């Protein structure tokens, strides 16, 4: 192998790329983290910050187990980051709710969870359906319209902006070379190393890990991989800082450690992150007030839209290239929830040079090529 500048070039400076770069550096790799510039579409700065388990895995049982693995690793992951950086990402796992505003919503929820738990090989993550009075014991401020909820004790949340900052502080401290404004235009494998053409010259590395979110769609074919993505837009409404009243995250609404309430789980096909659909914000706010009537007169201080990273079937993709040995791709929607796995499980696999099939085989993009019955 040529004397490359780096052992691994990680492409993508968001949560997935930063977590992976940190994990690689911990394994002793010389790592470059290639990022775009300030005007890049940055899903990592727009996300909702849940470390979420319930609902994950309907249609792919292994995804439930993979999610629980990360959820269980998160506390140690956060503690290690704090030791290394002094920064607290405020990880909490108090258990989370999915509230239903009608009997029909509650029934649909129960049916979904039953189908999920009836899958062969599913890990039991102890989600239960609760009625209004059971929910009110843990969420005393719910409105009368809340007929019930599903509750999962493994659900939690984090301060994701601080996670982003903490990971970047941690990789800097571990000697990862962060290269902003290095949009990757082309990748070739020559003389046993990868050569990445960027807007600021060539970067050479023994291995390459693509963690560029939806942009993996463009990059993966350069190294014989594929990343079928289906980006979508979400909108979030943020209130002024309030005294703590909500001690559990709800899938559509959570109070941050700093007091603001984040509302929203909308999905739109628009891919313009600079636009905002007012009707969507209004619906999110209206449902939030029905769930928690005390929010009726609080002030909204921000709204934003952001582009979700989403694979075509919603499940993660972890693959290594057969035609370009040493090239890996990581795609997932849940860059926060799965950050512990990316840092502590996937990065060591990339450092060793091969994915551990016993853990990640179900997440190969080969699943998109199931032959149709003829």
């Amino acid at each position: 192998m040529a004397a490359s500048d780096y052992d691994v070039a990680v492409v993508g400076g968001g949560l997935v790329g930063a977590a992976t770069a940190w994990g690689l550096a911990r394994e002793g790799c010389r790592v470059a983290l290639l990022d775009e510039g300030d005007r890049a579409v940055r899903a990592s700065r727009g996300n909702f910050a849940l470390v979420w388990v319930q609902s994950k895995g309907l249609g792919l049982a292994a995804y439930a187990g993979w999610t629980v693995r990360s959820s269980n690793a998160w506390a140690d992951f956060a503690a290690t980051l704090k030791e290394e950086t002094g920064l607290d990402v405020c990880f909490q796992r108090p258990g989370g709710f999915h509230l239903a505003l009608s009997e029909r919503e509650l029934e649909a929820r129960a049916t979904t969870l039953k189908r999920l738990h009836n899958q062969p090989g599913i890990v039991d993550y102890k989600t239960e359906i609760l009625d209004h009075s059971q929910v009110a014991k843990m969420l005393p401020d719910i409105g009368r319209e809340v007929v019930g909820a599903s509750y999962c004790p493994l659900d939690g949340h984090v301060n994701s902006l601080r996670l982003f900052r903490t990971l970047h502080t941690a990789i800097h401290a571990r000697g990862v070379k962060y290269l902003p404004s290095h949009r990757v235009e082309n990748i070739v494998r020559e003389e046993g190393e990868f050569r990445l053409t960027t807007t600021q010259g060539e970067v050479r590395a023994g291995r390459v890990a693509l963690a560029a979110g939806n942009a993996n769609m463009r990059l993966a074919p350069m190294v014989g991989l594929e990343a079928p993505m289906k980006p979508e837009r979400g909108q979030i409404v943020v209130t002024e800082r309030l005294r703590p009243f909500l001690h559990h995250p709800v899938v559509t609404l959570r109070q941050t450690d700093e007091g603001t309430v984040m509302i929203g789980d909308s999905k739109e096909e628009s891919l313009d992150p600079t636009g905002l659909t007012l009707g969507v914000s209004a619906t999110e706010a209206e449902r939030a007030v029905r769930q928690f009537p005390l929010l009726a007169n609080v002030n909204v201080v921000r709204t934003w839209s952001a582009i979700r990273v989403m694979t075509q079937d919603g499940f993660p993709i972890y693959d290594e290239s057969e035609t370009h040995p040493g090239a890996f791709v990581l795609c997932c929607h849940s860059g926060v929830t799965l950050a512990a796995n990316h840092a502590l499980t996937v990065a060591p696999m990339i450092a060793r040079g091969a994915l551990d099939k016993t853990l990640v085989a179900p997440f190969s993009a080969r699943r998109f090529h199931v032959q149709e019955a003829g």
Partner: protein
Amino acid sequence: MFKRLGDTADTLTIEIDGKSVRARSGDTVAAAMLANGIDHCRTTPVTGAPRAPYCLMGVCFECLVMIDGVGSRQGCLVPVRDGMRVETQQGKREAGR
């Protein structure tokens, strides 16, 4: 600190933190608080530092107070009414108030 220029407008009474004070018709809540020598109208949600009305034109959000039970109102944009109850706001607002 502040002194009225004249004494012509109608006088009315508002309550600030439970204490009756005089204000003038046409005053904003922020102006009435300043005229009554109140040196801060809130403490911040982040550090608890005291804050007073500053821009007096609806831009800086320093003059947030609780008015008739509703928190985080901009005192400089709300005219006083006779019998109005104004409370200084301590730290983060309480949801529902």
